């Protein structure tokens, strides 16, 4: 009898969990956009108790693919959608809504920063990623081999960086030593090393992961500050976007409107990105 009751109770437990017919929004993609959306989702769910927003990481490429295959409602992307990607999904009408701006910054381990490397030119960065410069000594740094960290091919940060540094968003980096994925994975690798160079979103720097300024062709040194991102002086900047299939409707539209509202834009700023509202 006991067993029978137990068996009876199992479907009850499941139905108790799934009985509320909440509206669900699935979002996934760029780990750069992720902190903003997950905070916004928390806030949004506080005021909309009938909505459930599930936020996943994976990178811009994953976001685009899943929106393309119509598996999710919102893709988070931090780069443009390539033509190849658009042509893969003829049935999907990719619609982009910018929600903020960000810079992609070359970052180094704090040991390298403290040894005096504070800025690099685009040309120097290109040489490092092509494998033509492989020791910090050649850049007046310590005599250590550069641990060059590259990112997975479909990552937004990589597209934006390679477009400007190597002239092609899908360029191969022959000088790379490691290929990593998410911002936090790369952050860990840079902290663990004492001679690493990587590429990160502006919001992911801390005391162990230092951002470098860029030396422009006219000799001007541009620091990766919010001000320089706002006025467009910093050379490697990008929009942070949400992508949907067609114009967002219903609850998805409400959520995106919330992110675009003053309150939502405050979350963007709090995550150290630049608000799109002027």
């Amino acid at each position, binding site marked *: 009898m006991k067993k029978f009751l137990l068996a009876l109770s199992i479907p009850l437990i499941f139905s108790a969990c799934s009985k509320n017919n909440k509206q669900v929004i699935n979002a996934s993609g760029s780990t750069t956009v992720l902190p903003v959306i997950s905070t916004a989702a928390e806030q949004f769910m506080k005021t909309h108790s009938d909505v459930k927003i599930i936020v996943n990481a*994976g*990178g811009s*490429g*994953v976001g685009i*693919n899943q929106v*393309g*295959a119509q598996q999710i409602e919102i893709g988070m992307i931090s780069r443009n959608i390539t033509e*190849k*990607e658009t042509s*893969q*999904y003829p049935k999907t009408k990719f619609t982009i809504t910018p929600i903020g701006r960000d810079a992609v910054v070359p970052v180094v381990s704090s040991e390298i920063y403290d040894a005096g490397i504070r800025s690099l030119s685009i040309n120097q960065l290109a040489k490092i990623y092509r494998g033509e410069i492989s020791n910090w000594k050649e850049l007046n740094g310590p005599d*250590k*081999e*550069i*641990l060059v960290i*590259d990112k*997975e*091919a*479909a990552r937004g940060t990589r597209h934006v960086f390679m477009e400007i540094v190597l002239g092609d968003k*899908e360029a*191969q980096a022959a000088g*790379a*030593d*490691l*290929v*990593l*994925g998410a911002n936090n994975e790369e952050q*860990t*690798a840079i902290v*663990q*090393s004492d*001679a*690493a160079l990587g590429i990160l979103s502006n919001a992911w720097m801390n005391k162990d992961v230092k951002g470098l300024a860029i030396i422009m062709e006219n000799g001007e040194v541009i620091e990766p500050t919010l001000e320089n991102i706002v006025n467009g002086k910093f050379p490697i900047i990008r929009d942070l976007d949400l992508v949907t299939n067609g114009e967002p409707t219903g609850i998805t539209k409400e959520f995106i409107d919330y992110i675009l509202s003053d309150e939502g834009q405050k979350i963007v700023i709090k995550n150290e990105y630049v608000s799109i509202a002027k």
Partner: protein
Amino acid sequence: MSASQNNIGKCYVLVSTYLSIAIVAIIFVVLFLSSYDAFANIGWDLFSLEWNPSKDKFGILSMIYGTVSVTFIALGISVPLGILTAIFISEIIPEKYRLYIKSAIELLAGIPSIIYGLIGIAFFSAWVSSFFELPTGRTILTAGILLSIMILPTIVTLIEDALHNIPKKYREASKGLGLYQFETITKTLLPIAKKDIAGAVLLALGRALGETMAVMLLIGSIDRIPEPFYNVLNPGQTMTSKLGREIGESAFGSLHFSTLNAIGFLLFLIVITVTIITQLYFKKERRL
């Protein structure tokens, strides 16, 4: 029990069995169909070095190299370690401690692989990099060593069982002939358990080939064969880590997606071959 109940039972068992077989068959067919594009369009170029989906270059040689070398390192460490541990548990310590030590080692098998990966990233790779004075601890060797720990329980348990199952009379006969314990183990017990040891190694090989999470986090994920090729203190890429990193990024139905499926298909073929060899090996064996 009535005859009809018996029939229902039979039916149920039969359906379950066929279902299990069907699942394997379906996976095989689906993998083959979705990787067909890759085999048809890329052909033998699949076994080249350059991987660049944006230029339709799909060479998986560096991943095959990574899988082979990581597995080789893992087995190279865990096989001797596993055999010695099994001998110790089965032959040397008193019977009453045997189960405690054995279950402690078997606990290793219960730890999820992502946890191995996290420990590997947080501590192990840092140790490797400072010990060998490397720029990064994410190397083929690191992944191989971690993998060896992960497959150790399989090897120890199976070999220990094999040794333990050898009837007492063999040990007594050896003793009666005046052999030392060392000689009993090397000259009598190990030769008898030879086939079981080989079976254990093949099973562990299967697990090592398929392990993904821990290896993916630790290997550095760069599609390159180090120079010289035996320098395993360099980052690399395995077939599984490539799949783990890129399958989400590839558009469904694209050549990229199909090639990743082809990698999975090849891996599946390798594992099936290993399994079949293991099965045949055990079939021929006559129990004592």
